[in-house]
C-alpha cells in the first residue's frame, strides 16, 4: 500500500508543468500586472519636453519589460510543447473548452499587446534601447496616424487581456477553493 502511494505521488508529480514553465508563468504574471499598474500611473505624468523628463524612465522600463515578455512567452510555449502535462482528468467538457480558449486568447493577446506597443513606439519617433544597453532598430518612420492607430490597438488589446486574465484567475481560484489539485500543476509540484 505504501509502495503504491509512492508510485502514485511520482505519477502525480509528472502531471504538473515543468519547473521552467512554472517560473516563467509566474514571471509573466508579475510582469503583466506591473505593466498594467505602472502604465496607468505613468500616463498621468506631464507630457514630455525639454524641461519635463518624467516619462523617460517609466516608458523605457515599460517597453523593456514588454519586449522581454514576448521572449518569455516564446520560452513558455517551447517548454510547454516539449514537455506537455497530461490532460486534465476531472474537468467537465465545457471547462476544458473554456480553459483551452482562455489559454489561446491569453497567448495571442499578450503578443498583440506587446507588438502593437512596439509598433506604436516605432512610429512615434522615440527610440527604444533594450534594458538601456541595446539600441533596437526603428521598424517604422515617424508617423502620427500610425502611432495613434497602434496605440489604440495597444490600449484595447490591453483591456481585452485584462478581461481574459480575470477569467484565468477566476478559474484558478475556483479549483483552489475546491482543493482539487489542478492549481498545483502550475506550482512546481
Amino acid at each position, binding site marked *: 500500500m505504501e509502495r503504491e502511494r509512492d508510485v502514485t505521488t511520482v505519477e502525480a508529480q509528472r502531471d504538473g508543468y515543468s519547473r521552467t514553465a512554472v517560473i516563467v508563468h509566474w514571471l509573466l504574471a*508579475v510582469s503583466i500586472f506591473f505593466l498594467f499598474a505602472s502604465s496607468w500611473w505613468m500616463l498621468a505624468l506631464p507630457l*514630455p519636453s525639454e524641461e519635463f523628463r518624467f516619462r523617460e524612465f517609466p516608458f523605457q522600463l515599460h517597453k523593456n519589460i514588454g519586449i522581454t515578455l514576448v521572449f518569455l512567452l516564446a520560452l513558455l510555449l517551447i517548454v510547454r510543447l516539449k514537455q506537455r502535462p497530461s490532460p486534465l482528468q476531472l474537468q467537465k467538457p465545457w471547462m476544458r473548452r473554456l480553459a483551452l480558449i482562455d489559454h489561446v486568447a491569453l497567448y495571442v493577446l499578450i503578443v498583440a499587446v506587446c507588438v502593437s506597443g512596439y509598433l506604436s513606439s516605432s512610429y512615434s519617433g522615440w527610440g527604444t534601447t533594450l534594458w538601456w544597453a541595446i539600441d533596437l532598430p526603428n521598424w517604422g518612420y515617424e508617423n502620427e496616424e500610425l502611432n*495613434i492607430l497602434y496605440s489604440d490597438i495597444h490600449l484595447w488589446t490591453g483591456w481585452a487581456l485584462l478581461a481574459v486574465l480575470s477569467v484565468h484567475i477566476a478559474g484558478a481560484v475556483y479549483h483552489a*477553493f475546491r482543493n482539487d489539485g489542478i492549481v498545483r500543476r502550475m506550482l512546481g509540484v
Partner: protein
Amino acid sequence: MSDVTRSVIGSAPGAAWESWLGVVAIVLGVLLTAAHGTEWTRQHVLAIAAPANGELPPAECPEDELIEEGLSVGECEQLVSNVRSYLVSAPSWFPGLMTSLSAAGTILALASVVVGAALVDHRAWASAAAIPVFGGLALIDAIGFIGVINAGPILRGLYLWNVLEWFVIHLMMTVGAAAGRAASADTAG
C-alpha cells in the same frame, strides 16, 4: 493514468484552508508586487526628474501631443499640477520612507506568492512561513500608514485608504494562517 493517481490529483491531500489561503496569497501577492513595484518606480522617477529646487515650470502642451494623448489643455496643465502638489506636500523624509517600504514590500509580496504556492501544495513548512511573511506585509502597511498620516492632507488623500485596505487584508491573512495552523495542530493532536 491509474485510478489511484486520479484520486490523489482529484482530492489533494492536506487541509482545505491551506488551499484557500494559498490561492488568495498568490493572487494578492502578484497584484501587490505590481503595486509596490509601481510605487518604487514613482519614487525613483520623482527623484531623478524633479528639479532640485522643487519648482516646476509651467506646463507645455503642444497640440499634436494633446491629440495623441486625448487630453484637453486643462488636463495637460493638471498633469504638471499633480506632480507639483506631490512635491510640495511630501516632507523630506517621505520619499526615502516610501522607497524603503516599497522595496521591502516587493520582496515580501514575492515571498507571499511563494508561500501561497507552498500552501496550495500543502508543503509542511508553508503554514509556519506564512505567518511571518503575511505579518511582515501587515507591518509594512502599518509603518506606511503611520508615515502617510504624518505627511499632510494631500498625500493622505492619495495613499491612506489604499494602505489601510492592504493592512486589513494582510492582518486577516496573518490571523487566518495562525488560526488554520492551530486548528491543524488540534486535529493532529
